[in-house]
């Protein structure tokens, strides 16, 4: 068996097993991987899969949970609030810690960083963004599709509607408890170490800038083996420094 190929694992959230993919060895540095939120998760799936295969081949164990209501999770997204996601991330980290005997490091992509409120030796982030920007993208996509259908609407009207009840944004049916909390969610700050990485051309502060396209913005899922290799190299160096 190719050690870089993923295995199906799971973690328990509210006594229900939720899917988690595991890559690489169970000894050595262990990494909990938090995916981007909503459409960005699909757009980055290939990029992250490639990255984790490279890390696995390099001896870093990687664990990638699907949040309740996302990916292969059996839960309905409309029944999920932000707290559920935070609890799920904590449960996934516990599950990795129990299985490997050590708490994992955390690598969060994009909006996944909003959920990295857990205790870890160190945290790594790629192009994180505030919750209101995550919601803004969803609202903007909804505005664009409304306009295409000839319906006049505004961001303010859509946000007000989201606060009152379930709403369909960019193909995702969200409960008010999720969209409202995302709008308010800031990036967690830590007493522990944090490394932030962004793409070249991004004006925001970061510890390093990697060359590559922002695949999370692509309407059609794209791929970039070079960016995956650059991300894997950055995470690997960082994870080894912390594991040592």
């Amino acid at each position, binding site marked *: 068996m190719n050690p870089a190929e993923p295995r199906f694992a799971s973690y328990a959230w509210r006594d229900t097993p939720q899917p988690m993919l595991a890559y690489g060895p169970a000894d050595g540095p262990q990494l909990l991987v938090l995916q981007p939120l909503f*459409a960005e998760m699909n757009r980055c799936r290939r990029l992250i899969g490639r990255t984790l295969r490279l890390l696995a081949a390099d001896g870093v164990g990687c664990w990638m949970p699907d949040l309740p209501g996302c990916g292969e999770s059996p839960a309905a997204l409309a029944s999920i609030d932000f707290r559920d996601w935070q609890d799920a991330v904590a449960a996934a980290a516990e599950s990795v810690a129990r299985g490997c005997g050590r708490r994992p490091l955390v690598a969060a992509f994009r909006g996944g960083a909003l959920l990295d409120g857990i205790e870890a030796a160190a945290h790594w982030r790629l192009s994180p963004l505030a919750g209101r*920007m995550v919601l*803004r*993208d969803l609202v*903007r*996509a909804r*505005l*664009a*599709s409304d*306009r*295409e259908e000839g319906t006049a609407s*505004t*961001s303010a009207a859509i946000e007000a509607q989201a606060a009152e009840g379930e709403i369909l944004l*960019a193909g995702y049916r969200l409960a008010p408890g999720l969209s409202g909390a995302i709008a308010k969610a800031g990036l967690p700050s830590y007493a522990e170490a944090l490394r932030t990485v962004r793409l070249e*051309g*991004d*004006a*925001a502060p970061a510890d390093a800038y990697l060359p590559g*396209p*922002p695949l999370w*913005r*692509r*309407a*059609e899922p*794209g791929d970039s083996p070079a960016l995956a290799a650059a991300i894997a190299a950055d995470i690997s160096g960082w994870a080894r420094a912390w594991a040592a």
Partner: protein
Amino acid sequence: MERSDAADVERTVRAVLRDVLGLSEERVEAFTEATPLFGSLPELDSMAVAGLLTELEDRLGIVIEDDEVDGELLESFGSLLEFAWNKTLI
């Protein structure tokens, strides 16, 4: 206004079109002010418009309001460029 600033903004707008829509370098370099965008590029659907605007905001350090996003904004490469210039250079 420095000429080099306008050229920087144009480079950024081309890079955003390339990166967000997944277009080749050659294709984007061949865009002129008259090149039609929305309705002519199959890659540029309503979801892609949202990503394009947000990425322009991030890279140019600007904020694009709802009422600035009308049919004319993405009519041609020239209209998008002029919008970006107005936002950044004035």
